[in-house]
């Protein structure tokens, strides 16, 4: 922030800030350091980042100098001798042409900063790796003064207390048990305690004392609401939405992935497995349906279906998004800036970005509006394993069958070139025949029109007596450059083979029946057999882009005897018009013929074909939802990856191999040429310095409002330093070892800590000294998330449905909100009383360009890109929402009914409603005030008193639902 770069003069109005910064400064040192020893990480690195790296860093290396690494700055630093160091000479210079930083770039370093630099160099100029790039090590639990012995129960408390006391703060006493219960219930499962749960907890407390907390925590963690609550931060991170984004923002059916996340959390799938499944589940040996489904995470990227958009451009953008999201969500680093240049602060080189991108660059998805590739995920999870088994059988049978034919296809002796090729088209597309190589081909000239059928007439190939198959072979205009810079592909919508006998009339063509189509890859996105269906525009061919020459083989129904045949005519209709702009017509095409009987033997519709058909029929009977997932490209057609100059995919330079970056340690050789699965294993490895820290910090941030590293999105050297580094590292190590990557175990540990149990009372002094509660001298009190605000209102009022999973729902929204660009995308609100109206918010249809109004008002992100931290605001639009929105109006009505039914007197009704809302009994003052409102709404001499009382209760209920205490943790 700009305001922070100013120098502050001591003066009354900033004195308080100074005090605060002093408190802060006292807490910034890391580990044991000699009193006077300069710490590179905390004292020198920030100085370099602020004043030097803009010109001498990852982006620019003026004078070949970069302060990112020791060796690239060695020539300006003379360890042990500051006065001989060129760096200091330039910093101290009085000459405006010499001084560093140059006056137009920034201010001179002040005396204190120069002193730091000088001492650092004199002490030997020791460079240190950024703290987060070294693996965490468990730290010794600090001793706490004996008078606090009773306060802290866990090691967490000891770490927290130490830092708190160091800053001159004292801990708060524990919150009332009921307040803890409410806080924990909202944090763990996003719903308040029910009256029964409250009673049970209070009874257990009497019975077993403190152990009641643990029992309550266990129950909350076992509640299926846990997965629904904790799915939200994860869905933010992986930018989950039910629409495609950019362009048309059409509906995307990918809710099965959302259900997978909820389910994985509820099952407490260990975080390492959770990670591997989502990054590379498709590559796991014996991947389950769940593993495949988990990879849909990568398919949450945006698809641009706008007319005239380049599929390759947006495929690349999606791949880039996968790289950035992987780094942001799992490694807490903004890798995105390395797309254009080396990282400005952190030691990540430009080419390392593209080496990492190469992990994601060989999947078959390519910005297609159909969301290909998809897997048919059974609606009922109980059928996942049987469906997967069938799929595996089908794939195995087909693969063997396909390979047999492919072998034949690849044998050179199989195919024969035609003689006297002549080409024409049905429309304005111009074609000529070129025979530069051995095989004659047609080539288009000038504009290619949509719905082009290329008609190829020829004489039968010399030496061939019969035909059993023909092959259409489409080539890129430039096969060399297409490997890196793909061209638009082609689709054979229909293939027609005709022959004319010698001496026959000119138009006496007779059609020869075709029976099967074979693609040159086993699992193409489109069904090749569609090429035989005159009604479909789809069929065999590279859809929608091509990197390599590609072909399709058409097998005849019967042997065609060539004895009488004088002429052959092949019509290749290519009718796909991608994005209303690009005719998918091969610009170069060849046709070849085979007389090998083996084609017909292969195609015989018996035996294995029948087995295949049976398997497919059985699979079809399992009701399923086509869900986009990751699928590796067929190895033969792997794309090479290259560095993009300045991040622009149109200007590629050096070709790179998949590799993880150097700066996170490990053996460099062991990191080259890895698969996506190996990359996933590397991230989920216990030794990865960032994975566990980032995960632990995210959970901490969810519970306490701010992470131990407040910049949850940036663990790099420009991010915030941890307030409790020793605690973070110890928790990270524990999470991996003791807790075996169990998020539930981690949460349990945290919510049972005394730190979390503290009362949230904030004295004026504490607010002054520590406004953000970073030293945790009071319990957390943060505004609830949009989802919890809504779900809680439903729960308090009793409207909440406990229906779980399934397609997204459309609860009421104000008129005028729903006006999608694509008219077909309907918002169908269920009627009052239908439970789909009152589901947990996580099940609401998430459209990127039209945010659900409550989510928008309460700071939920729009899910276009990875978000790991929500900023909380406090606005009048939120008030309007919770006062007037249909959901809250219905909730207030329902709560009023609940209150009314529970008791007769307004006092009892108020007490009951109050208890439902905040899980405690109201004070006398609170009851009095609410009663006053009740009476002021009832005091006229009404004819219909009952109606009036109901109305008054509704207003009371509305007030209860809007209490600040309700909206906060």
């Amino acid at each position, binding site marked *: 922030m700009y*305001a922070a770069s100013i120098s502050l*003069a001591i003066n009354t109005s900033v004195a308080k800030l100074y005090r*605060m910064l002093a408190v802060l400064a006292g807490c910034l040192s890391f580990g044991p350091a000699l009193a006077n020893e300069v710490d590179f990480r905390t004292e020198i690195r920030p100085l370099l980042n602020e004043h030097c790296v803009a010109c001498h860093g990852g982006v620019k290396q003026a004078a070949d100098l970069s302060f990112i690494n020791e060796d690239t700055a060695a020539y300006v630093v003379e360890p042990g001798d500051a006065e001989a160091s060129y760096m200091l000479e330039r910093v101290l210079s009085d000459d405006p042409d010499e001084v560093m930083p140059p006056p137009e770039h920034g201010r001179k370093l002040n005396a204190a900063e120069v002193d730091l630099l000088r001492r650092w160099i004199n002490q030997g100029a020791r460079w240190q790796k950024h703290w987060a790039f070294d693996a965490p090590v468990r730290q010794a639990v600090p001793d706490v003064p004996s008078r606090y012995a009773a306060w802290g129960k866990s090691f967490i408390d000891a770490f927290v207390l130490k830092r708190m006391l160091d800053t001159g703060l004292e801990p708060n006493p524990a919150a009332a048990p009921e307040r803890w219960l409410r806080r924990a219930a909202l944090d763990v499962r996003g719903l308040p305690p029910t009256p029964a749960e409250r009673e049970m907890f209070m009874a257990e407390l009497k019975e077993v004392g403190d152990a009641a907390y643990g029992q309550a925590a266990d129950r909350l963690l076992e509640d299926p609401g846990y997965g629904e609550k904790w799915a939200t931060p994860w869905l933010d991170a992986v930018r989950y939405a039910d629409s495609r984004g950019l362009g048309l923002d059409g509906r995307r059916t990918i809710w099965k992935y959302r259900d997978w996340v909820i389910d994985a959390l509820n099952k407490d799938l260990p975080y390492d497995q959770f990670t591997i499944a989502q990054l590379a589940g498709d590559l796991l040996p014996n991947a389950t349906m769940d593993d495949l489904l988990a990879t849909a995470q990568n398919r949450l990227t945006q698809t641009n279906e706008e007319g005239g958009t380049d599929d390759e451009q947006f495929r690349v953008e999606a791949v880039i998004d996968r790289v950035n999201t992987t780094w942001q969500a799992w490694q807490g680093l903004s890798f995105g800036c390395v797309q254009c240049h080396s990282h400005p602060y952190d030691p990540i080189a430009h080419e390392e970005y593209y080496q990492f991108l190469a992990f994601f660059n060989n999947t078959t998805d390519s910005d297609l509006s159909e969301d290909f590739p998809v897997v048919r995920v059974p609606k009922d999870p109980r059928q996942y394993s049987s469906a997967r088994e069938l799929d595996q059988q089908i794939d195995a049978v087909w693969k063997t069958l396909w390979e047999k034919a492919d072998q034949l296809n690849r044998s050179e002796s199989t195919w024969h070139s035609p003689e006297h090729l002549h080409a024409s088209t049905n429309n304005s597309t111009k074609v000529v025949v070129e025979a530069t190589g051995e095989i004659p081909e047609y080539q288009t000239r000038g504009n290619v029109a949509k719905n082009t059928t290329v008609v190829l007439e020829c004489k039968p190939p010399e030496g061939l007596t019969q035909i059993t198959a023909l092959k259409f072979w489409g080539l890129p205009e430039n096969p060399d450059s297409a490997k890196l810079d793909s061209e638009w592909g082609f689709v054979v919508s229909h293939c027609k083979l005709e022959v004319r006998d010698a001496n026959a009339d000119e138009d006496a063509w007779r059609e020869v029946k075709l029976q099967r189509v074979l693609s040159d890859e086993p699992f193409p996105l489109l069904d090749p057999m569609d090429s035989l269906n005159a009604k479909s525009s789809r069929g065999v061919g590279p859809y929608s882009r091509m990197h390599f020459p590609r072909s399709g083989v058409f097998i005849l129904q019967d042997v065609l005897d060539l004895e009488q045949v004088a002429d052959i005519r092949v019509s290749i209709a290519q009718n796909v018009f991608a994005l209303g702009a690009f005719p998918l017509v091969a610009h170069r095409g060849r046709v070849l013929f085979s007389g090998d009987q083996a084609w017909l033997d292969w195609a015989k519709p018996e035996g294995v074909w029948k087995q295949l058909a049976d398997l497919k029929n059985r699979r079809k009977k399992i009701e399923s939802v086509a869900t986009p997932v990751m699928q590796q490209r067929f190895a033969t057609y792997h794309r090479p990856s290259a560095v993009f100059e300045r991040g622009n995919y149109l200007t590629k330079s050096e070709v790179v191999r998949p590799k993880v970056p150097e700066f996170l340690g490990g053996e460099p050789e062991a990191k080259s040429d890895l698969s996506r699965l190996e990359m996933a294993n590397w991230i989920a490895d216990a030794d990865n310095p960032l994975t566990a820290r980032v995960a632990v910090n995210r959970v901490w941030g969810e519970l306490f409002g701010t992470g131990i590293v407040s910049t949850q999105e940036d663990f790099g050297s420009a991010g915030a330093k941890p307030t409790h580094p020793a605690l973070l590292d110890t928790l990270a190590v524990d999470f991996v070892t003791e807790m075996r990557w169990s998020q539930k175990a981690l949460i349990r540990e945290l919510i049972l800590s005394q730190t979390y149990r503290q009362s*949230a009372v904030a004295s004026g002094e504490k*607010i002054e000294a520590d406004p953000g509660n970073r030293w945790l001298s009071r319990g957390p009190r943060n505004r609830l998330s949009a989802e919890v605000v809504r779900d809680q209102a439903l729960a308090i009022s009793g409207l909440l449905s406990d229906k779980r999973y399934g397609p997204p729902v459309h609860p009421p929204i104000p008129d005028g*909100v729903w006006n999608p660009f694509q008219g077909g995308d309907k918002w169908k609100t269920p009627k009052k009383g239908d439970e789909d109206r009152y589901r947990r918010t996580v099940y609401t249809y998430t459209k990127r360009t039209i945010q659900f109004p409550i989510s928008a008002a309460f700071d939920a992100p729009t899910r276009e890109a990875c978000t790991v931290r929500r900023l909380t605001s406090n606005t009048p639009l939120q*008030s309007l929402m919770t006062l007037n929105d249909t959901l809250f109006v219905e909730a207030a009505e329902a709560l009023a009914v609940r209150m009314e039914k529970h008791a007769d007197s307004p006092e009892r009704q108020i007490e009951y409603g109050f208890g439902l809302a905040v899980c405690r009994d109201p004070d006398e003052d609170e009851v009095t005030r609410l009663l006053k409102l009740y009476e002021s709404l009832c005091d006229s001499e009404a004819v219909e008193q009952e109606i009036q009382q109901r109305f008054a209760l509704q207003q009371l209920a509305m007030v209860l639902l809007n209490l600040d205490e309700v909206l906060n943790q």
Partner: protein
Amino acid sequence: MNHEQHYRAEWLRLQTRRQFLSRSAAGLGTTWLAGQLAASEGSEPVDPGDSPANGGLHFPAKAKRVIFLHMIGAPSQLELFDYKPELVRFDGKECPQEYLEGQRFAFIQGTPQMLGPQFPFKQHGESGAWVSDRLPHFSKLVDKVCFIKTMQTDQFNHGPAQLMVHCGQPRIGYPSAGSWVTWGLGTENEDLPGFIVLLSGGRQPRVGNALWGGGFLPSVYQGVQCRSKGDPVLNVSNPNGVSRDVRRKAIDALADLNQMNHQEFGDPETLTRIAQYELAFKMQMTVPEAMDISDEPKTIHEEYGTEPGKESFANNCLLARRLVERGVRFVQLFDWGWDSHGSQESESLNAGFKRKCEAADRPMAALLTDLERRGLLEDTLVVWGGEFGRTSMAENRGGIATRFVGRDHNPNAFTFWMAGAGVKPGMSYGETDPMGYMPAENPVQLRDFHATLQHLLGIDHHKMTAPFQGLNQKLTGVKPARVIEEILA
């Protein structure tokens, strides 16, 4: 934010909240400017170059508020403002290869034909600006307007290009200009949202609310869409049967209970929330009042061509005036239907485009006249434009001549006009080549436009930054941007 910045922000938040509570205003939280002021109070100036006389700003602000008229779809500059007599001669001829090399098009294939201007042009006013006969009302006002003929963008599909215009990035997730400005300066009227968005009805912008999103800025700075139909702001009306009096009583009770809660917990956010409920209660009056144009005199309705209760560009132009009059900082209008490819009647130069011009001409002229009459044009900046331009060639989608006349997307050159606060009136900046396809001189990038917009509001675009993903982000992005000094009055 780094550690110190984080704390500093917390502290500033607290400071501002105190000021806010004592003034019982705000609702927007800490603006960038408030941060500047709080930081400079009694200490050294924020930057030696910044004069405290500018109230924390980097320059004297010529513009206090902005009205941005975006014609979604990209109107053809060649049929409105960029007159190219040479193109008349080339009409129907094959496009010279020099224009095609290295270019990417959305729909044009192979070698298209050039397309001459479809309407006659004339010079107008003392400035002699060329305007086609499609804008008879607007052409009378050319002496109040500054044209930029050489706007450029690097996106040639609508979605990304629209994002470029508003957020300076072709991707979703960055703050829009309106959000930057509101975050920067706050608003002059706390009873209304500071950044209001008005849509003409019909088709929605394809990237939806991302065009007025707050990105990584606090969500309170995102644009608030106000509607001519239904609630002008979502949920601004009380539920059926709840009178203003009943609501008053309920909010009073809520405030008292929240006050008790504050007594116990001391959380300053509770006090803010009490104030926000009060503000919401006020907005329930002020917003419908501001959005109700039925009290405007008949002459005004005639001037703008407005009909109360309708969703239209004309109504929105009048609303824009009413809103800036009430101190709204940034008013963003989106019209639709300007994508004249010629692939269908409604989107063709010879049919749909004519109707769009007819519908837009009178209200946009009326807006300028009305603002000037009220003395508002002096410190209100009005901007008009699309997300890119259109090609000098006719479209030949799918390799087939289209039934109607149209042009494809041209990111290389398009026209913006600006009027009012601090902009030189009666001038034209930048020249395109004789075909109107590329800038011949003085190209202007969208980031230059953003820098200029901020400059007029008193902000140095280099200096208003927000930290996000390890970078001090700014509206103008990382590539060098320049204030177009030549058009400043």
